[in-house]
Every structure is written in C-alpha cells, then in structure tokens.
C-alpha cells in the first residue's frame, strides 16, 4: 500500500498577515512558513496507518520552488519515507495544482491520497475534489474518521457535514481530505530530523511529468476587509438587554 500526501507551504497560522503596499500580494518578508495544518493531519493519519500496516509507503509531495523543500523536510522528519518536489511557479490556482497532482498520481500510482480539506492561506477547499474528479476516482471530504483494513480495497469514512456525521464507503484508489478532528499531528522530534537528512528528496519538473500548470484564476487585487468599529461598553446585564431591545432592535 502506498499513500501520497501533498503538503502545501503556507504562512504559519499564527502569523499576522500583511498586504504589500501596492496590494499585489501578501508581505512575505519575515513571515514564518509551515506545513498547512490540515495537510499535517493528513500525514499524521498516514503515519498512524503505517504503524498497524508495516511496509506501507508514504510519499510527501509539494509544488513550488527551492523554499518548499523546508516543508518536505518537515514531512520526512514526521516520518514520511520519501519526498517529491515538483518545480512550479508559486502562484497556481487549485485547478492547476490538481492537474499537476493528477500527473504525479499517474506516476506514483498510490492507493490513496490524503490531503487537507483546505489550505489556510487561500481557504479554497477545492484541490482534493478536483484531483479526484480529474482522475475519475472516489473521494471522501471532511474526513474525521478513516478505516482502511490491510489489503482492503475499500475505505470506511466518517465525514463532517452540516447535517452531522455522514458515514460512507469509498473504493480505492481515492482522495481523502482531512478535517480538524481526525487526529492531532505529532511534533517533529530531533531523531526524526536526523533520520530525515538521509531520506531522498526527488526534484521533478512539469516536463518530467508530461504536464503543464495553467491557472484559470487571476487575482485582480487584494484588500483589507472593512474594519468593524468597536462599539460601546455596557455596565450591567440590564443595560445590555435594553440596548439590544431598544437601540439595536435585534431581540
């Protein structure tokens, strides 16, 4: 069994996001980057599956430039077996990413793709479903529980939906996108970092994969959202009720 885990390099979730003065992009100077937290959950799930299924191979992959090797190293230090860097320009939309991942899938032929349900930078929540659609394979999104028995060709998933937990079975290969509650990813350990140094990171180009990356999305401008004005302080519960009733007229 082989699991492919795409990792996206994103600004650390605790970073304060600032716009470049011309609004053309996000200020990246001095910004710390991290593996997209949902992707870390996806990798953790693969690592846990390997604990009960020795021999399972975990391949982490990312798209981008030299800088994205940092996130692959994190993935290897967490325990992935090997890593692939696909050289692309940094600003691809979800469809372009899904097409590149589809080409990578055809080369690696994994049994499953585990990836985050969304990246916390563009919050699009698209790439996994697009990938499954492009490949014509099954998908389970917003996964909070996942069972794939050793040697099985089906997965049983619990999915977080607006209506509650949904349980579905999906034939393999399939794409699984992970929700927050699936697991809590491990921290990278020092021995993990040492071991990771010996693990291979392969670099491939789009030409190697026989694909191209064309985005259909153009960002015209970025802006800060209008700020809400801080309102008034009230001193008592009575005053709060009265303001909500008589001034705001919402209760």
């Amino acid at each position, binding site marked *: 069994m082989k699991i492919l885990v795409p990792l996206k390099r994103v600004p650390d979730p605790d970073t304060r*996001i600032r*716009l470049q003065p011309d609004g053309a992009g*996000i200020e990246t100077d001095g910004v710390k980057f991290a593996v997209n937290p949902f992707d870390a959950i996806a990798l953790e799930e693969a690592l846990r599956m390997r604990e009960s299924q020795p021999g399972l191979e975990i391949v982490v992959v990312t798209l981008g430039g030299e800088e994205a090797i940092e996130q692959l190293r994190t993935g290897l230090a967490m325990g992935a077996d090997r890593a692939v860097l696909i050289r692309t320009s940094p600003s691809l939309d*979800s*469809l372009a990413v*899904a097409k590149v991942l589809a080409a990578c899938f055809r080369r690696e032929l994994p049994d499953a793709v585990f990836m985050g349900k969304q990246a*916390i930078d563009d*919050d*699009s*929540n*698209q790439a996994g*479903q*697009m*990938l*499954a*659609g*492009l490949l014509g394979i*099954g*998908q*389970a*999104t*917003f996964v*909070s529980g996942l069972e794939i028995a050793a040697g099985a060709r089906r997965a049983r998933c619990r999915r977080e*939906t*607006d*209506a*509650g*937990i949904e*349980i*579905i*079975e*999906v034939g393999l290969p*399939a794409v699984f996108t992970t*929700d*927050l*509650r699936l697991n809590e990813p491990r921290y990278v350990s020092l021995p993990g970092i040492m071991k990771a140094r010996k693990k291979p990171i392969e670099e491939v180009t789009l030409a190697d994969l026989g694909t191209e990356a064309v985005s*259909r*999305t*153009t*960002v*015209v*401008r970025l*802006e*800060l*959202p209008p700020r*809400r004005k*801080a*309102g008034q*302080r*009230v001193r*008592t*519960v*009575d*005053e*709060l*009720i009265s303001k*909500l009733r008589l001034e*705001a007229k*919402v*209760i």
Partner: protein
Amino acid sequence: MQHILVIAEHAHGVLKPATGSAAAFARKVCAETGGAFDLLVLGADVHPVAVAATRYGAAQVLVADSPALAEPLADRYAHLVAEIARTREATLVVAAASTFSKDLLPRVAGLLDAGMVSDVIGVQTEGGALLFRRPMFAGNIVATVRLSGAVKVATVRGAAFAPGPTQEDPSALTVVPVNPDALPSLSTFIGREEKAASRPDPTEARIVVSGGRAIRSSEDFERLVGGLADALGGAVGSSRALVDAGITPNSLQIGQTGKVVAPDLYLAVGISGAIQHLAGMKDTKVIAAINKDGDAPIFEVADYGLVADIYEAVPEMIAKLKS
C-alpha cells in the same frame, strides 16, 4: 451574457434558505450581464422541493429525480451536474457555500476543466468580465479575482446575498432523465448521525449565542449558552477551543475552519475572539460580547461589550429575558 446553473440544496423535503441566496446571486449576475439561470434539484422523491424552487425567478427548474440520487454522493452528483452543465452550455455553475456544495462543486469543476472561486461575497462586472470578491487568510484579506475559460464554477456565501421576495410567476419545471446505470458508483452511503435538531441551524438562525473558552463543561455550555439561546429563540455555536476540549461537538464550530454565520445578533459568551473565530462571524449585523477579560479582542469588534463573569451574567440575563 451568462447562462447560469444554480444547484439547489435541500434536506428532509425542504429547500434550504441558502438556495434563495444562490438564486439571488444568479439574478444579480444576470441583471449585470444579461442572460438567465436555471435551478437544478437533484435527489429522490424531490418533486415537492422542485415545486418550491419554482418561486425564485429561474427560467427553468430542472429536476433530476431518481432513487440512485437519494444521498448526495459526490461522484454521482458531480457526474450528473457536469453532464447537465455541458448539455445546456452553462457558463457558470453556482451553489450556496455549504459542506454539500464544497464536496460537490470542485469535483464538477475538475470534470468541466473549469476555474472555480469559493465563498463569494460580492460580484461585479468590469469591462465585460465578471469579478468575484472572496475572503482569504481567515477573512484577513479580501481578494478580487477573475476566472478565464468558457465555464466557471462558484460557491457563494448565503449571508452576502439576501434571498429577496419569492416570485409570483412560477418557473417552468423540466424533468431531466437519469439513467442510474450510467452513474459512477465509486462510493456507497452507509449512514448519517444527525444532530438533535431541537435548535435552529446556526447558519440559518437570526440569533446565534456562541460559547468559548470560559465555559468549563458540557453541562455549563448547555445551561448557559443553550439556556440563553432558548430564551432568545436562537441557535447555539461554539469556538474551536471548546470543540478541542471535547465540550461541544464539531458541528457547532464557528470560524475559518467551521461554519460561517452572519445573523442579526451574535452573542459571544466567554469568547476571546481569535482571528480564526472572527472569520466565521464578523459579518454579523450586531455583535454583543460578555467576557471577564476587558482586553479580549472580541471587544474590538463587538457593538456592545459587557465585562463580566459569564457564570454570573448569563444566568441573570436568562432570568431577566424570561421574566
């Protein structure tokens, strides 16, 4: 000129209000660019839903009704939606943002080789091109984006497009034939654990009372947040901290990675107001907050702030609302 295909969402035989928002978005685009929109209802035994859907100003309501569509499995639904979009030469496929549409529409976009924009909060035309506004980075940035290609896909935020009054003239109903054997069967529906529906859905409620870290147990949450929501006839929500602590279920989480709400009143009880939480509620009309910490960031966005211990203030408020 646009030909828009709006995907309706329904549950238990009732059209979801957010479908009205998706239709309102489609009407707005058609008003700016010319064109028309159709509303597509997929499911099993959905004739009553389809009839309800005829009141939103669509040129046609398309009904794909089959036992094979009883559950919204993405592989089947996407196959059918993509096929209908192709046959009818749709230029834009739209649904209200929800876990249903977020599961389905990106797959449709993949099948149609279409660019997609999620969580649209605004739309305009500039030089004939459609420009979509959407939040990124937990709502800290608003991007204006353009999509290229003959067909585009979008999910739109219900709160950003008011459904508007229903139309007197009903749309025409058209049955779309479904051949179950031609549908992919990559997945199987096993079951659903629906949450108890004693309170309204926070994404649809006029009032949402939401609890945060200051709440110490599930019992306290039910007594304080649940009690206050019941006294106000509202829904309950929760910050991520309480879900992580196992005090509230995931389905209540409001924020960047949970639900996005924009009610008339959001009453934050013991919520500090991290940016990831604000991303899920800051388009609310009126925000009120009760928190012991007067420096909590929630007070920077709250219209009304009460610095108080929630364990004292909330029971008092419930009692006074009931009297």
